[in-house]
């Protein structure tokens, strides 16, 4: 349609050739409007995303302590140091442990919730809102609630009060490492915050499954319940599932807020449960102020996350339509 309008224009022979400004503005100033609406966001992206990324790559080749305009070129030394740093490598291990915990549990719980909410007849939108509500809570606020009132180590903390009812001793949830109770705190917090959001995604996908499939299956003698779920619902959710798993993985990779607020303190961060972003934060932006080393770590992380996403997308078929699957 656009091309049709464009070819129609020269058909008016007497029209003088429009000025350069008019041509740049496009028909009905469309180009102008395009840039007016898109421009601020492009500008924002440029200033707050692209320039920092490029700058970070630049910094990673310099000895940039306490400066972002370094002069001391060090080549790949920062990368070498980062890749041989046991603390950085163990932070990658922390991410893997965290992802192994959080991705399957969030997936299973949000799917179960979506199935349940989808089936109820009454209060459907009420339940949907109730489960979705925690998503609106900030990670920082939730961390403080978890740390100070639910999982504090003294006898009157919520979790310890429950333990006391059963005659058990109070546990210092975030202070001890044997057994690593802090994972319980971290994982429950993230589950509470994000399960509702993924439940909504699953609900949307569930509602897109054509009813006719269930009717046909019923006619063919499929039993309601597990059989229908196994052979109709679950395969039909494939596209949504893949997107959700990739999103969950990327979110796990970017974990920062709850770790920092639950375990970090004025004395710094303990050497356990330290995900990559928290470690890099302390190197570059915390007291370390070593922007070269921090940037090298960030570039390594970016490359890793890109590789994981691409490989995962290939294996699981990210973005493929349900019909093709």
């Amino acid at each position: 349609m656009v091309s049709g309008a464009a070819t129609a224009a020269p058909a008016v022979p007497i029209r003088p050739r429009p000025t350069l400004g008019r041509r740049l503005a496009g028909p009905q100033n469309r180009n102008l409007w395009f840039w007016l609406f898109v421009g601020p966001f492009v500008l924002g992206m440029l200033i707050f995303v692209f320039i920092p990324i490029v700058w970070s790559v630049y910094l990673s080749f310099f000895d940039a302590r306490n400066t972002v305009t370094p002069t001391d070129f060090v080549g790949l030394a920062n990368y070498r140091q980062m890749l041989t740093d046991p603390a950085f490598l163990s932070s990658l291990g922390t991410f893997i442990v965290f992802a192994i915990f959080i991705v399957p549990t969030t997936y299973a719980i949000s799917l179960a919730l979506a199935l349940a909410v989808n089936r109820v007849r009454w209060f459907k939108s009420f339940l949907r809102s109730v489960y979705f509500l925690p998503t609106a809570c900030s990670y920082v606020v939730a961390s403080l609630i978890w740390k100070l009132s639910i999982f504090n180590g003294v006898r009157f903390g919520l979790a310890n009060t429950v333990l006391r009812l059963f005659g058990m001793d109070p546990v210092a949830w975030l202070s001890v490492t044997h057994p690593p109770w802090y994972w319980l705190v971290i994982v429950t917090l993230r589950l509470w915050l994000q399960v509702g959001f993924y439940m909504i995604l699953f609900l949307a996908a569930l509602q897109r499954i054509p009813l006719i499939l269930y009717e046909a299956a019923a006619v063919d003698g499929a039993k309601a319940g597990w059989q229908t779920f196994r052979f109709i619902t679950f395969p039909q959710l494939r596209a949504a599932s893949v997107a959700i798993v990739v999103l969950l993985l990327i979110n796990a990779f970017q974990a920062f807020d709850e770790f920092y607020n639950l375990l970090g303190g004025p004395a710094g961060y303990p050497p356990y449960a330290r995900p990559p972003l928290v470690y890099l934060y302390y190197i570059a932006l915390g007291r370390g102020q070593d922007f070269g080393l921090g940037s090298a770590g960030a570039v390594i992380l970016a490359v890793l996350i890109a590789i994981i996403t691409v490989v995962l997308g290939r294996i699981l078929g990210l973005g493929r339509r349900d019909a093709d699957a």
Partner: protein
Amino acid sequence: MERTSMISSESTPPEPVSRQMNRRRFFTVSSAAAATAFLAACGSNTGRNESSAAATTAGAASSDATTAGSSAATSSAASSAASSAAESTAASSAGPKVTLAQWYHQYGEKGTQQAVEKYAAAYPNATVKVQWIPGDYDSKVASSLLTSGGPDVFEAGNGPSIDAIQGGQVVALDGILGDAASDFPESLINRMSYDGKLYAVPQVIDMQLMVYRKSMLADAGVTPPTTFDELVAAAAKLTTADVKGLFVGNDGGVGVLPGPVLWSVGADYLTPDNKVGFADPIVATAMGKLHDLFTSGNLLLGAPTDWSDPSAISQGLCAMQWTGLWTFPQLQTDLGDDFGVIPWPKYAADGKGGPSVPIGAYGSAVSAKSANPDAAKSFVQWLWVDNTEAQLDFAQSYGFHVPARASVAAKADKLKSGAAADAVKILQDNGHAQTPLLWTPASSTAMSDAVSRIIKDGADPAKEMAAVVAKTESELKRVLK
């Protein structure tokens, strides 16, 4: 497409077009203005008057108000911040009076913020805007020193870091002490100097120490411990179903105990000639003992507030707590006379170490990116060298601190009686500089990682400490250029 042809310039008469364009132009202009305002609001508020442009000032003033409102400050503080922004705009266009931004970390004691704002407002030669920074103060200062949007004057724990000094981020304050130079403790001045130049003026001296509930110790038949073993035994005896014997921070002492443990065996972070000071195997042994304490069940862990806040001991969660002199006014309110003070005990009765407390001082420094470094220096001199009245008020009216100047400390009457007097005595007898200047953040992280693994995981202390020695040596090599 149909809609487009309706308003295309070929088919419509000129007048409606121009009206259309006017409406559009109005929209364009207003949205551009909105975008500008948005960008202006994005600029971080540094407390400094950076531009006389009305939009920017308004943005800064309104974000001032937001900051004040979100912290516990009253609404009058918010409105005064906004009006002071307006006033200073007028002042900068009328006269030569410069505006300085001064940063403090968030002191926990009530009234401290209002006090420093009062001192700043009394300064005649410049408009000083105080920024009260909650959260991770050190990191925020470090990041802000990279840009011109940071503070002119800021306080730094034990003065600016060696990397900030070597990186030229702070200005040397030569001659700022004047005749008062001999009135400041030499050790503090040395701690804040590098290559013979002073980089910060000590504000007040802070000390950490152990406080204990006299009544609880008496009930349990425990005398204040003088060795580490006695401390462990006391913690065990004082622990009941509801009260833990000892509180050294929610991390089990990782944050506060490395120094006291080093001094308790006669070691230190660095030797006076800047070599590693903790290679002695006794250090590893002493650190290893902390793991036993951690797993004994007699330590308070996971308290709602950390060691620097007096709540744990004043609410009866523990019988002994490692904390700081600054908590004394609150402790006196909550416990009356029912608390005593001791230093961290020496490791063994016959060892070469001794009892110890870490002492440190926030020092007032001037950013090299300041637009008015000389004005900033003059302000530091006015407040922390010459204005002894403000120094005395700051030291004893809110949290307790010891004034840096000896002549002012002599006038601090509230530090002359009770537990505070005992604390000052401990400071004089057992005080150690918290950390040396060349103890870099990387060394510090290596130490606390190792100590955390020793205390919590029961890792092999000898192996862990050897790794810290190696890291510290490489850091020393880096900064001793």
